[in-house]
């Protein structure tokens, strides 16, 4: 039933050539590190260190608060300077544990295992949970929750989201090329949890080298296949990806498990590998630092907590003064006020643009052209929903499938009148969700 694509979507300039041939380079933080207590969906973690404490690399500094939450680990050795509010990439100011790096990188010992078969399913889940693994594609949903559906036997597909459909991003691409074994091992660890599931590595067909490599490495694996997806944004959006791989469609009220699927992105699956096999917590991620304002676009292996400014320096600084800096990709990333914000578990890229295309255009009247309708992967009518949103008409908004929007940004991208469609719909969705919580 695989379709390898979905209806709608767009083909923006992908900008991946800037950084796709740059090998991953590990960088070490120089300044203080900031660990926001909320780097995931769910309850913020609870700090378990206090000002003045000495911590080691890999030491837990904040523990999960309840089931839908995740612990946080120190990624350097040093001294806790305090717990104070600091700006994070999405623009909020949240409580962060601040650690002064002593530059020694003294590390705790990890409990590695030899074989996956040495441990039980419960232990696998526990290791993932303890390691603080969350969805590193952007949402930050705690991975152990994803991997604990009500009926694990009904899961038929464990999909690794290797689409990397966001323009400019090459972190997953480099990871697949450089550490494919870890990816496959991580997938195998996830597959252990589901007796009836097959693993699918779903890659967009603009990465033929990754497809060939992964196919070669999984040749002997009967339970793992590689799916070449049509290159189109937002191919990596969870619902569209599940549809492309399985032909099953879920709406906003359903979970991937309802379609017999579990979906994790590349970095997350590598984090699962590290957690299960090596006993290492989630401390590092790949960040693409790119854009036409950057001197030397690169892919860095970065320790969580590092301040973005350091990444810009490592990439040779600015070639030209950037007008806009985005944490994440250009379609769904967050624009930054300034670069004094930390890398979190969900930071995939730092995109520095000389021109802000949004500010360059002034929104004008909708001409009803329907381009947003053609582009919308959710098969809704963005222009009308934006009207309802702008008029504060919650009832009509919900009645016309407003909650089915996945906020991918296709409508705003294509709109010839340059209306802020995604923004309006997004704000209204937030209001509807807040309203529902009240009830």
């Amino acid at each position: 039933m695989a379709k390898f694509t979905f209806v709608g979507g767009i083909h923006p300039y992908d900008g991946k050539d800037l950084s796709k041939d740059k090998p991953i380079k590990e960088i070490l933080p120089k300044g203080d590190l900031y660990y926001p207590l909320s780097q995931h969906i769910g309850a913020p973690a609870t700090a378990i260190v206090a000002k003045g404490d000495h911590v080691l690399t890999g030491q837990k500094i904040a523990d999960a608060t309840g089931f839908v939450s995740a612990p946080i680990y120190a990624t350097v050795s040093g001294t806790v300077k305090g717990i104070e509010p600091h700006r994070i990439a999405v623009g909020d100011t949240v409580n962060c544990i601040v650690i002064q790096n002593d530059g020694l990188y003294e590390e705790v010992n990890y409990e590695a295992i030899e074989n996956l078969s040495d441990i039980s399913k419960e232990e696998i889940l526990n290791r993932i949970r303890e390691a603080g693994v969350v969805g590193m594609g952007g949402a930050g949903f705690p991975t152990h929750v994803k991997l604990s559906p009500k009926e694990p036997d009904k899961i038929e597909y464990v999909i690794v989201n290797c689409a990397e459909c966001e323009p400019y991003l090459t972190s997953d691409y480099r990871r697949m090329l450089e550490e494919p074994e870890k990816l496959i091992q991580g997938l195998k660890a996830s597959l252990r949890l589901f007796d009836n599931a097959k693993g699918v590595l779903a890659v967009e067909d603009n990465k033929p080298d990754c497809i060939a490599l992964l196919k070669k490495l999984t040749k002997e694996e009967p339970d793992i296949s590689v799916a070449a997806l049509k290159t189109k944004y937002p191919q990596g959006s969870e619902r569209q990806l599940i549809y492309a791989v399985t032909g099953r469609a879920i709406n906003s009220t359903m979970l991937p498990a309802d379609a017999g699927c579990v979906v994790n992105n590349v970095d997350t699956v590598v984090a699962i590998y590290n957690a299960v096999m090596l006993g290492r917590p989630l401390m590092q991620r790949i960040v693409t630092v790119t854009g036409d304002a950057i001197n030397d676009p690169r892919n860095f292996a970065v320790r969580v907590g590092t301040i973005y400014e350091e990444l810009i320096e490592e990439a040779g600084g600015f070639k030209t003064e950037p007008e806009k800096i985005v944490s994440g990709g250009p379609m769904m990333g967050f624009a930054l006020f300034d670069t004094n914000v930390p890398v979190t578990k969900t930071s995939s890229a730092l995109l520095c643009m000389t021109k802000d295309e949004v500010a360059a255009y002034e929104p004008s009247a909708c001409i009803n052209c329907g381009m947003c309708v053609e582009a919308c992967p959710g098969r809704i009518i963005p222009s009308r929903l934006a009207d309802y949103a702008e008029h504060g008409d919650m009832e009509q908004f919900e009645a016309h499938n407003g909650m089915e929007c996945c906020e991918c940004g296709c409508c705003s991208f294509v709109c010839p009148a340059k209306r802020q469609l995604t923004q309006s719909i997004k704000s209204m969705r937030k209001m509807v969700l807040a309203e529902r919580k009240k009830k």
Partner: protein
Amino acid sequence: MSNLMKVSSNPHIRSKVTTSSIMSAVVIALLPATCFGIYNFGLHALLLILVTVASTVLSELIYEKAMKQKVTIKDLSAVVTGLLLALNLPPKAPLWIGVIGGAFAIIVVKMLFGGLGQNFMNPALGARCFLLISFTSIMTNFDCDAYTGATPLASIKMGESVNVLNMVIGKTAGTIGETSVIAIIIGACFLIMVGAIDLRVPGSYIVTFVVFLILFSGHGLDGSYISAELSGGGLMLGAFFMATDYVTRPITKNGQYLFGILLGILTGIFRIFGASAEGVSYAIIIGNLLVPLIEKITYPKAFGKGGERA
């Protein structure tokens, strides 16, 4: 940090297509028909076109200045309206017809309803119908230097035979821009190629109309009759350039098919059972009025609710 960056909600990139680039594409697509009209009917046709376009653009400018609104003539939509209206005028119509028609199209049909995107009726067609009713003899007099007498459709209606080849090329009496099927199709192909329009509305319109003719015209499967009906009376200009007007056609996909089918049926009724030989303009403006209803019954299903395959 001293210099704060620009922030905005996602997405942070935009396609290069703008309202004015779409409107320029429509103007370019209308050039073959425009040029043929000028070649076919002479200098007066050119003057009429220029005056009509000037009238629509100036009407918009003056209205917006008078109402202290933002001037929007740069989006070129008024140029498109003016050009379309002019192509729907008889070649020898006096220039003041273009002036009045242009002003009516913009001020009454478009601006009074809220300007671009808010009008429920195609401004050019609204103005044409206004002119047809108000100045019937001028608007139905297609005599000119090159051709005298009836339009091909009127001849068919009276039971006379017509030269289909001349109709396809455009060497017949008619409004300035409606006569040459070839010129219109060239422009339409360009619009389809650049992605400005698709075949949903024109395709379903034309197919339905042909089916209607076969069933109800009494000519059955008479190929030359059908080709003549398709080539005459502004059907091609209407189907590709006016029924496809974004603002006044349904935004839903299925609605667009339904809209085309409706236009095909209405045009068939007007042409076969009506007193006049033509019917495209009225069919489209009546279709325009039904758009809200069509959209209501064709609102799409969302992804995951059955709409993923559409």
